[in-house]
C-alpha cells in the first residue's frame, strides 16, 4: 500500500497522501479512514493530496465518497492541496467535488475545518459540513 499516514490530533484525523495512489491504495485509504472514524468520535478529517498530480474519475469519485461517509459519521472533510490544474480537469471531466470542502494549504485547511466545526456546533449535532 502507498504511504498514507493517518494521525489523530484531538477530534481531527489528518491523512497525508505521500505518493501517487493506485486504485487499491485509494480503496485501502477509504477503508482505513472509515475504521478510524468508527473507532473513536471524530469531528473532522483533513486529507492532504498536494503531492497527487493526477485525480481522475476514479479518485475524484472516491474523494466524494470519503467525504460523504465521514459526514454520515458526523465528521466534516477538508481536502487540502488540490492543484488548480487538477481542479479544472475535474470540472471538465464532469466530476465536481460536491460536498467536499477544499483548501490550498494544511494551515488554511485546519482553519476552515475549525470554522466548520464551530458552525456545526452552533447549529446542532447533525449539521456538520
Amino acid at each position, binding site marked *: 500500500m502507498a504511504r498514507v499516514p493517518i494521525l489523530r490530533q484531538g477530534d481531527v484525523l489528518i491523512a497525508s497522501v505521500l505518493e501517487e495512489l493506485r486504485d487499491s491504495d485509494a480503496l485501502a485509504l477509504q477503508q482505513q479512514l472509515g475504521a478510524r472514524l468508527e473507532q473513536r468520535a471524530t469531528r473532522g478529517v483533513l486529507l492532504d493530496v498536494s503531492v497527487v498530480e493526477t485525480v481522475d474519475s476514479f479518485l475524484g469519485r472516491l474523494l466524494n465518497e470519503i467525504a460523504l461517509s465521514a459526514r454520515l459519521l458526523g465528521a466534516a472533510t477538508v481536502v487540502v492541496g488540490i492543484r488548480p490544474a487538477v481542479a479544472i480537469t475535474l470540472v*471538465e471531466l464532469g466530476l465536481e467535488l460536491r460536498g467536499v470542502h477544499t483548501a490550498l494549504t494544511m494551515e488554511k485547511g485546519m482553519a476552515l475545518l475549525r470554522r466548520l466545526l464551530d458552525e456545526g456546533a452552533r447549529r446542532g449535532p447533525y449539521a456538520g459540513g
Partner: protein
Amino acid sequence: MGPTPAAEERLPIAGETDIIAARQRARELAQQLGFGLVDQSRIATAVSELARNVVRYATGGRGEAALRALAASPRGIGIEIVVRDEGPGIADVAQAMREGFSSGTGLGMGLPGTRRLMDELQIDSAPGRGTTVTIRKWRR
C-alpha cells in the same frame, strides 16, 4: 516503410501500477512538447481513464499505450496516445460515448469525459475484436 517522423514509445498496461506509469510518461512527453500545466493535467487524466478501462475490462486486463509527438502536422505540435486492448470490445460505440450512459461499470463516465479533455478521440472497436482508442491534443 520509411522512418517515422517521431519515435513511438510503447508501454504495456497489465495492472494498476501501469496506469500510473502510462499517465506519468504522457505528462512528461506533454511537458517536453511545451504543453502548459492544465493541458498536462488533461492529457495525463485522459490516459489514466483509458488505461483503467484496459485494466478493468480487457481480457486478462492487458493492453498497451503508444505515445508519440505529432510534430510535422499542419496543426502544429501535438501529442497522440493510442490505447489498445484485445478485450471483449464495445458493441455500441455511439452508446458508450453518450453522456450519462453507464453499464454499471463506470465506462459511461470515462469516454465522454475523456473526449472533453482532449481535442480528438477516435474509437475503433467491435465485439470480439478488442478496442483501440486514439486521442490527440494540439498545443495552443
